[in-house]
Structures are given as structure tokens and as C-alpha cells.
């Protein structure tokens, strides 16, 4: 059910030109590499590099005084990879700032008794004071770990999420980790994700992946009886319950989800992952490192999948099923067939209200490409998309999704994005909270595509219905029709009195 349309390449090229013309030459040159127009890979032909013409550069340093939208390594480790592991206490190690800023920003849902055996929505910090900076914080860190052990005895481990100062003051958090792990007989994982490392949250993902490899895998004897249909879902953080929606679907086709990384996950799920038969990767960007490692070391193959919108759900389910053979394939076809009427009802209800609506995206992770088809399944068109912290391989993958002429922007600034939106005036922008208010003030409907605006899940068939409803609610809300002030209008003649 792929939609056929093409965006206006010339107009988009002109937009880029206009935007760049406002910069000093040097800055314009630097920024020009991040902006481009898609050549059109014509659907999903393998290997086609749809964005090659525009040569979008990505994963490059931000410029002081220009960029602010990206996060840091700490955000990538604490905020994305480690934070959702629910039975561990994640200490924001350093001053109070980072942890407080990020507290409850992502809606990583979970099941558990918060503060007893589960800690996701709590916030722990070693709350460095000046003396800790001057004299070092290792002693304090030990006390913090002891306190946590005492106050929350049901925790299954601790991670240390390093903030910037840790990397400067020469603390040996690895030594502390080893010492306390032994003492409390718990997993303690030091993560060197100081915010100044790398150019975005992306390096934090990598560091966090490596910490799993180095501090979790093969450290304990794992008692786990594996089965022929065991899979790990990797890189689904259960935003708004997405991972639950995915799990339900995978179980329906006959698979057993033995681990979900890391939404609603336990440490045990991470530990036993190497025993699964297949890794299903949702967020490639944040978890490809450890997946490749598992492939290499334990021989577990991995594949990407996409559960946004029925077209991708069907395609993904079928290719997953193929991996497991006829039995699963049969069940898969039945599941797909079962949901057909539901999909049809959703489409019939919402497509008339959404058909031809034009969407611009700007998000992190996998969403700048993965959600595209879900929009198209509803008759909507993607006119522009971009990543906050994508790499070259992200943009390559994007080529499979975008149509010719689509505007592509990497690590875009507020100024650039606003100019693009102003020029294109799409019917909907899907981006993050930072972009929400400026876009809405331009009179353009908006949905958060990081956190689904308190809604969700968007994965799976049920999620598609919610997704469709949310887009409809945003685009077709009556508030968008009410923007001109009466003192801006010409006075009507009813009372024959001149206004103004």
C-alpha cells in the first residue's frame, strides 16, 4: 500500500539556498553539507542510496553559539539505553543538573512497584558539591551506593552515569564499581558517558552498549532454558507502551520475546540475551553496536523491523517469520489476515480526513524514516525529514523510505527548521518538545514524535489506530482556523462605522 507522489525538488533546493544565504560564508559552507534534497530511491529496492545526490553530512560537531537541539553522551546512555532498565538504580554521578533536567522526560512505561523493586521514574544523583569536585568523589560514591543498597534492598544492580566533571577530576569509578559489586554481590556498571564526549547523544549509545558488553555479559551464570522461537527485541524503549504492543504481536505469530531492550526490562533480560535465536532491532542507531557484538560473539543474527503502520507491520512480520520457517509463516499470515478488517476500518475512518496532508519530520533515532510509511498508509505525504543525531548509515536507510524531492536536513538549527517550515507550510510537523511551541505559533499542527505527546502506543495494529486518531486530532482541530485578530480585518460595513 505504498503511496505514489513526488516532492518539489527545485522548490526545496531553493529553500536551502535561501537559508544558507543568511549565513556568513564559512558557516554556510559548513551547514550546506547537512542539507539536501532526496533523489528518490523508488521504494525499497535494496541498496539504493536515495539521498546520495545531496550528500547529507551527519554526525559532525555542532558549532558554539549555533546548535542546541542535540543532547550529549550522558543523554544517550542514561536517557536512552540504561535508564529504562527498571530493576537497577541509575545514579546520575556528578552535580544535580543533568539528572534533574532529564527526569521523566521520556515516557518509558514499565510494570513494577516504584521505589520497591522498580526505579525508572525515580531520580538518583550523587549531588556533587564543590568539595567533591576539589577532593574527588569516589568516597561519596561509595556512600551513595551503600545508601541505595540499604534503602532499596530489592534493587538488582546499580549503574553510574558519569556527568562531565567526573571525566576531569580523575575519579576511578571503575575501581569503586568493582569493590562495591563484590561487597554487595550486585552488578555495578560504571558508564563513562561524560557529556563532553562525542558530538551528540549518539556516542553515549555506543558507550552504553559497550558497558553492557564489558560489565554485564558473561559475568554471571545465567539459568535460562531457551527455546526455538526466542527473540530479543532490541532498541524499543517502550515509549507510551510501544514495546508492549510489539510483544503482543510477536507472541501472536508464535515467537517468545525473552528480552526487551530496554523498555520495561530487567537486568536478567539483558543477561540472558545471548541465548536468544534472533535479535530484532527497532532503534538501529542506539543499539546496533551491541547487536553486532552479539552476532560476532554469540552468533545471533539480527534484523531490523518496523511496526509503524500496517504496510511495514506486514512486511516486517513476514520477513521475521521467514527466519523461523513455515510454522511461524503460517501463523503470521493468519495474524495479518485477522487484522485486515481492523486496518480497513481505521483507514476508512481516517483516510478521508488525512488524505494528501503534507508532513515534515524532525526526530532522533529511527523515526525520521520508520514512521514515514505509517503516514503514507493514511494517504499523507512526507515532504521533509531529518535526524537530530543520525549517522551516514541512518541516511542511507532513509533512502528506502523517502520519495523524490523530499527535503533532508541533519542536526538542523531552530532558524533553519523554522525557515523550511515557513516555506513549505506543511499540514503537520512531527518533531520534539523544543520544536512544538514555535511551530504551533506559526499556526501549524504539531505532534511530538519522540514521546507521542502522552499518547501511544503507536506500534502494532492497535497503535496504528491510535496514531491515526492522534494525527487527525492534531490536523483537524478547529483552533487552526481561528487566527486573524479583528483589528487586523477591514471593518465590515454592518453598522456603517469605520473600525481601526
Amino acid at each position: 500500500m505504498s503511496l505514489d507522489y513526488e516532492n518539489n525538488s527545485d522548490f526545496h533546493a531553493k529553500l536551502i539556498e535561501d537559508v544558507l544565504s543568511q549565513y556568513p560564508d564559512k558557516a554556510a559552507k559548513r551547514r550546506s553539507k547537512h542539507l539536501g534534497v532526496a533523489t528518490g530511491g523508488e521504494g525499497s529496492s535494496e541498496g539504493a542510496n536515495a539521498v546520495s545526490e545531496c550528500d547529507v553530512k551527519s554526525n559532525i560537531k555542532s558549532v558554539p553559539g549555533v546548535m542546541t537541539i542535540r543532547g550529549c553522551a550522558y543523554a544517550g546512555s542514561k536517557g536512552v539505553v540504561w535508564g529504562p532498565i527498571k530493576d537497577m538504580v541509575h545514579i546520575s554521578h556528578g552535580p544535580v543538573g543533568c539528572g534533574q533536567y532529564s527526569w521523566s522526560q521520556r515516557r518509558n512505561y514499565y510494570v513494577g512497584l516504584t521505589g520497591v523493586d522498580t526505579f525508572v521514574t525515580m531520580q538518583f544523583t550523587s549531588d556533587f558539591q564543590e568539595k567533591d569536585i576539589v577532593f574527588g568523589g569516589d568516597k561519596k560514591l561509595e556512600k551513595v551506593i551503600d545508601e541505595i543498597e540499604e534503602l532499596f534492598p530489592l534493587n538488582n544492580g546499580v549503574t553510574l552515569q558519569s556527568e562531565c566533571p567526573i571525566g576531569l577530576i580523575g575519579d576511578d569509578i571503575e575501581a569503586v564499581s568493582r569493590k562495591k559489586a563484590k561487597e554487595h554481590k550486585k552488578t555495578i556498571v560504571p558508564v563513562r558517558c561524560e557529556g563532553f564526549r562525542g558530538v551528540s547523544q549518539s556516542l553515549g549509545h555506543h558507550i552504553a552498549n559497550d558497558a553492557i558488553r564489558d560489565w554485564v555479559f558473561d559475568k554471571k551464570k545465567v539459568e535460562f532454558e531457551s527455546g526455538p522461537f526466542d527473540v530479543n527485541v532490541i532498541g524499543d524503549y517502550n515509549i507510551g507502551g510501544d514495546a508492549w504492543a510489539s510483544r503482543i504481536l510477536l507472541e501472536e505469530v508464535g515467537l517468545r520475546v525473552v528480552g526487551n531492550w530496554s523498555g520495561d526490562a530487567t537486568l536478567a533480560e539483558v543477561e540472558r540475551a545471548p541465548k536468544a535465536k534472533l535479535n530484532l532491532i527497532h532503534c538501529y542507531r542506539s543499539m546496533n553496536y551491541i547487536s553486532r557484538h552479539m552476532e560476532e560473539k554469540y552468533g545471533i543474527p539480527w534484523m531490523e523491523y518496523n511496526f509503524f503502520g500496517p504496510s511495514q507491520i506486514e512486511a516486517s512480520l513476514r520477513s521475521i517469520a521467514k527466519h523461523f520457517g513455515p510454522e511461524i509463516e503460517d501463523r503470521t499470515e493468519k495474524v495479518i489476515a485477522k487484522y485486515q478488517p481492523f486496518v480497513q476500518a481505521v483507514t476508512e475512518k481516517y483516510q478521508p480526513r488525512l488524505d494528501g496532508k503534507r508532513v515534515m519530520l524532525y526526530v532522533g533515532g529511527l523515526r525520521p524514516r520508520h514512521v514515514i510509511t505509517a503516514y503514507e498508509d493514511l494517504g499523507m505525504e512526507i515532504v521533509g525529514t531529518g535526524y537530530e543525531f543520525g549517522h551516514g548509515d541512518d541516511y542511507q536507510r532513509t533512502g528506502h523510505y523517502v520519495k523524490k524531492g523530499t527535503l533532508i536536513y541533519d542536526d538542523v538549527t531552530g532558524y533553519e527548521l523554522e525557515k523550511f517550515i515557513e516555506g513549505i507550510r506543511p499540514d503537520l510537523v512531527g518533531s520534539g518538545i523544543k520544536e512544538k511551541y514555535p511551530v504551533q505559533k506559526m499556526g501549524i499542527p504539531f505532534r511530538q514524535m519522540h514521546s507521542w505527546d502522552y499518547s501511544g502506543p503507536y506500534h502494532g495494529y492497535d497503535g496504528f489506530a491510535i496514531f491515526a486518531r492522534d494525527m487527525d486530532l492534531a490536523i483537524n482541530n478547529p483552533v487552526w482556523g481561528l487566527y486573524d485578530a479583528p483589528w487586523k480585518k477591514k471593518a465590515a460595513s454592518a453598522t456603517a462605522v469605520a473600525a481601526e
Partner: protein
Amino acid sequence: MVRILPQTKSAAINPLKSSQPLGAAFAFLGINGAMPVFHGSQGCTSFALVLLVRHFKEPIPLQTTAMDEIAIVVGCADHLEEAILNLKARAKPRLIGICTTALVETRDEDIAGDLATIKRKRATELTGTEVVLARTPDFDGAIEEGWSKAVTAMIEGITRSRTQYRDPRKVAILPGSNITVADIEYLRETAQSFGLKPVILPDVSGALDGTVPDHWIPTTYGGTKVEDIRDLGGAMQCIAIGEQMRRPAEALQRLTGVPYVMFESLTGLKNADRFIWLLTAMSREQAPASVRRSRMHLQDAMLDGHFHLAGKKIAIASEPDQLYQFAGFFTGLGAEITAAVTTTGTSKILQVVPAETVQVGDLSDLERLAPGADLLVTHSHGRQAAKRLDIPLMRIGFPIFDRLGSQHKLTILYQGTRDMIYEVANIFQANQHPPTSGAPNPICSRELQNDLNSSSLARQ
């Protein structure tokens, strides 16, 4: 097109409406130096008084003709006369507003004739006090009708009918009963900010606003002056707010020739824009900076709030004008009115309520129609249905006895609409249902299933 459904039962169970004389008394409370009088047995007065006190949390002047068994046999006129004279002597009110109750109306006497006789006979004693009669039996209408009749009676009884000098800056504003003290003040300030001279009738922002006078005042204090009612014909324009005010506005036009403009509601950006545009046109002044700024604030609140209101299912029970006001507010932000219940089926405004049906009925009808809604909207007596249905309740209308400050809530024009958006959005934020691990999102799914299976597909 909305269908008006007639009452389904003979009984009223958990009635939505309050009695008509209470609406009339409420209107008289908006006149300076007024004393509303219930013409009936003393018990109604006492009861109504308590309800008014519980709602406004203020001392309320309200009097009674104290009809008793003997009076019922021999006729009401003597009690009426005695009450008026006693009141005049003790309280020296500028206005005595008689509201008839079921008791005296059941007897079907010539009350208007009686009153005319008393006024003639006692002309000297009554100098300086207007006496006005509103025929408001309990077995007809509700607060809106009582309010409307009292205002009409005041215009017909007090306003001078001969043509007079029209002050181009003077504007008569006739607000309906679904307006708060804060609304009245905001209306006045807004009109004044354009250099206009508003006369608001009735003006409940005086005696019912929670001021603390430093000595005992038996009547109302603050409110529309009787002289201002007398001189209403000097206005250039009349603005009627709410369908219920068409009757008094027409009375004014008939008497004095002052033309009127109807505002069915002043809530929501569009209505507020139209009102501001009218003030601009009348005053030939630009909208002042504070008004422009308020409009921007409202726009922003709409942006921030529409997200929380969009798609929400609202069940409202209210009198017709207020029903229209709030239904329009909600649908203007993308919510849907899934249940609408009102007191009487006669108001023309019901025809344009943005709902599929409007049920004439009571709170048991609301409770029957509301399951599945995200919000109940009615007065304080809806609280038990809200609890039983586990749906949050937004309190509007009369009575609101279990919350403070209901009279200081703004509900109209830019700022009032903004405040309401915040209030409602915050109710929804406080009552979110996150998804669970078992089902993706039981709330959403269930409702989607309902939607998909029901005729609502065809609706839009």
C-alpha cells in the same frame, strides 16, 4: 442538525433545574438597593435563601410575603401589601422585586391588579421605591426564564419610554444568568477600555462579589442603579448576551427604540472577536494593547490546550444558554459533545447546540447518557454521578456549593476562554489513563472500537 428529545419520564430524578422565582430573585440581586421578595409561603424563601447563600457564600437579602393558611383562603393581596410596606419602612430599598411562586400562581389571582392597587393606594409611602412584578411560578421554566422575566419586568416597569438624547458612548449590556461576577467586571472593564460607558443590567458584581461592607445593609449594595435602568433609552446600542435576553432587549427596543445586537455566547475566540469588533466599531477606537495582548494569550492557550481537549467526549447538563456557551467552547477546541441535557425544550438556542441530540431532562438522564465520556459538566449536584461513573466533574452553573470562588471565575471573552482552557486541560492532565502492559491502551482501543462500530463514522 440537533434533535431535541422530550422528557422521558414523569418524575424528575436528581433534577437539573432550579425554580423560576429563584432566577428572578437572582436578577434583582443585581440592582443597587434592591430587595427581592418571594410572594408565597415563607418556607420557599428560606430554602431559596439558603441555596443562594451556599452558592454565593454571601449574605443574601431575600424576603417573603409569608403566605399562610388564612391568607390562602382570603386572598394574597393583604400579605403582599404588608410585606411591601414593612420592607419599605425598615429597609428603604430603591427597588422591591416581587417574584411569584407556585403557591400564589396556583390560586390564579389578579396579582398584577393587586399590585397596581397597592402602588396607587400607597403612592406616598412608596415614594422613592420602585416595585416590580415578575410572574415566575415554580411550575414553569427555570433560572433563565425567571432571570429573563425579571429583567423584562424592570425595563417595562422602570425604563422611561419617551425618546431621549442618545449618548454615542453609552451602551446597554444585558447579560444572561449564565454569567459570573468576574465576567461582569471584565465586560465592564473591556467596554470602558474602549472609552464606552456601559450600563449593565443586571449587574451582580456589586453585592455578590464578596466585598465586606463595614455596616449592616439590609438590601443589596452595588449593582445597576435604578436611575440607570430608567435612563436606558439614552444608550446608542444594546447588547444582549444569551438567547434568554432577547425578550428584555426587545422590550427595550419597543419602549425606547434602542437597537440590540444578540450574542448567543461571549466564550470562544470567534465570539470574543465579534464582541471586540463591535466595541471597535461603536467607539471608533482601536482595541487597546491589553485587549490585543489578551487575544494573544488566548491564542497561545488554544495552542497549548487543544491537544488536551481534542477528541475528548464531553457530557453537559445545563440550562439552554449555558449549554450552548459551553458546548461551543468545547467543540471549538476539538472536543465532542456526546451527551447534552437541558432544563426546558423551548429555547431557540437549542437548535444550534453543537451536539447530535439535546435531551430535556434531569441529572439521571445525564448519568444515563454520560458513560464513556471524559468529562461531566454540570452543577454541584452532578458530583455523585461523577463519582459513580468515575468521570471528573467540571462545575458550572447553579448551584455550586462545594467549591469556593465560582463567582470569581472568568468564563467569557479572551481571558475567560483562556482560563477555562487551562482549567479543562488540567482536569484532563490530572485524569490520564496510561496504557498497561496487557492491552496497548484499553481506553483508546475501546473507544476506537466503539467509534468504528457505531454510526459516528458517518457523522463527520
